[in-house]
């Protein structure tokens, strides 16, 4: 991931002070965002456990909660983005490209230290979410394969022999469709 360079708007000037209230708001919101993503991570881990334990009820429940948590976390991320844009408005950034890394050098040192900490925590939890998601994707893929295989056994869909039509042509049996494919 590379940061996007700030695009300055000359008419505003670089030395205008940044509103401390806004920075404090950003810090508070980032804390809430980290908390929300941590909750989201917990739900994903619980979802993973449910897949391992083959507990459908728990899995369905956790999936739903994970969706709710992800929506909340995303919403908080969007709000953080808005605040960052407001914080960086004094330094005239391009509206779509605002990151914490850009904000940190612009604020007072005590805020910068705190924001740096929060940023590291946020990156860590997001990385964990990404890894957990990848593992869950693998487990789900295997589980779907296992379920489909069992359904094939029960449905006795194992006969792959060819058949002849009345005109003598051989019809090759198509691979029986898997009932569900994971992307």
């Amino acid at each position, binding site marked *: 991931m590379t940061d996007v360079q700030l695009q300055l708007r000359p008419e505003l000037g670089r030395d205008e002070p940044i509103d401390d209230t806004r920075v404090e708001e950003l810090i508070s919101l980032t804390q809430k965002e980290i908390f929300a993503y941590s909750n989201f991570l917990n739900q994903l881990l619980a979802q993973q456990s449910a897949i391992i334990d083959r507990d459908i009820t728990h899995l369905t429940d956790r999936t739903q909660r994970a969706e709710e948590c992800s929506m909340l976390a*995303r919403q908080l991320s969007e709000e953080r983005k808005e605040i960052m844009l407001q914080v960086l408005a004094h330094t005239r950034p391009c509206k779509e490209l605002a990151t914490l890394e850009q904000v940190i050098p612009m604020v007072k040192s005590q805020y910068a230290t705190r924001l740096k900490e929060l940023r590291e925590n946020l990156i860590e939890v997001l990385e964990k979410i*990404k890894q957990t998601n990848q*593992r869950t*994707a*693998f487990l789900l893929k295997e589980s779907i394969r296992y379920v489909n295989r069992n*359904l094939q056994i*029960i449905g006795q869909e194992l006969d792959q022999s060819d058949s002849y039509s009345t005109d003598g042509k051989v019809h090759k049996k198509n691979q029986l469709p898997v009932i*569900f494919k994971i992307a």
Partner: protein
Amino acid sequence: MSGIRNTLEIARSALVSSQMALDVTGNNIANANTEGYSRRRAVMKSEYQRTAQNFVIGKGVIVSRIERTRDQYIESQLRTQQQSLSYWETMQTKYARLEDIFTEPSETGLGEMMSRFFDSWQGLATDPQSFTARNDVLQKANSLAAKFRSTTKHISDLKDEIRSEFNKQLEKFNSLAEQLAEINIQLPLSQEQAADLLDRRDNLLMQMNKIVNVQTMENEYGQVTISLGGKVLLENSKVIKVVEGSADEPLNTIHWEDNSRASKASNGQLAALATFHDETLQDYSDQLDELATSLVEKVNELHKTGYGLEGSTNVNFFDPSTTGAADIRVSSEVADNAEKIAASEDGNGGNGEIARKIAQLVNDSTVVNNSFSFHDYYGATIARLGNDVQDTTVKRDGQKMLVNQARTHQEAVSGVSLDEEMTNLIQFQRAYQAAAKLINVVDEMMDTILRMV
């Protein structure tokens, strides 16, 4: 690097566990119709490890055990019902054999032969000097006596057959006990095959319960301790075998090889065989004996007062040393010379009064136990046999229903239902489908959010 290794380990363990779970399901489906098979379930468990910093992190999944689905209470009920079913099935089979021995009603049955015997005396009464009539009486008497003897012999043969069957069941019982001892030895050592061993164990216990009513206790390894009538015959690997009893004691006396006090069977095949041998067959034998000795006594009583054609008197018609139906026969005096048949009351050759009185014995209702005629007594015996056959058939059929009911309950718990497996699988599929959608959403979300940090 440790993160990648951990991910791979989780992936590997998930793969191995899925394979094992697939094997379990395949095994269930393949054994759906195997008698005594109980459905298996792979129980998954998350694995964890502690890091150097004392954090607990996930290591994937393992199959902690393969569980067999069995309800002990239902098993116990089924065994008890099976004992009773085996009892009544055996009784019904033996009663049916006894019915075949008596062959009533028929032209060759004892009842018909008694009728012909008394009819022949009526024939002699009308023509006492006729040698044809005298030979007819002799022939009918011999046939009747032979029928008594053969019926008793068949009952005695059936008794011997039952004793032999009883002893064979004892051998089978010993063999089952030895096989159970083998399983007791293997169970604590083979946790991987425990489910198969326990299925075999339950199968052997069911066979044992068909033979006799044993009591079973199980420890935490699934090893069984078995007792019969308070005597422990199997504990861990130690078996105390049953041995055959002697022929002159009741059949229901089960001896042990260590000479401890004998036990009795109260249910199952052994109990039925013993009851039928010691009580039922003895009852019917006794009744036949009663009938035979009454016949000999009453006929001889009259015959001795009469006169033969050559003037002989005080002659027994039947051998007076008869003890019962097993040895009834025409006396040697009469058998060797038909003229000695005492038809006359006063010594005149044309008088057939004694023959008439003997013929009339058939209508006398005090000849057996001072309460019955010959036919009434025999008729009651046959009627009782018919009732007993019907009674045991009804009980057998009723018990079969109870066993089927218990078995249905057992199947509901332990049986493999392909429909249920399919339903479960489709439910899993739906749940996974929903979870997979979330995967894609999260994947996109992470890409976006990480750019904003």
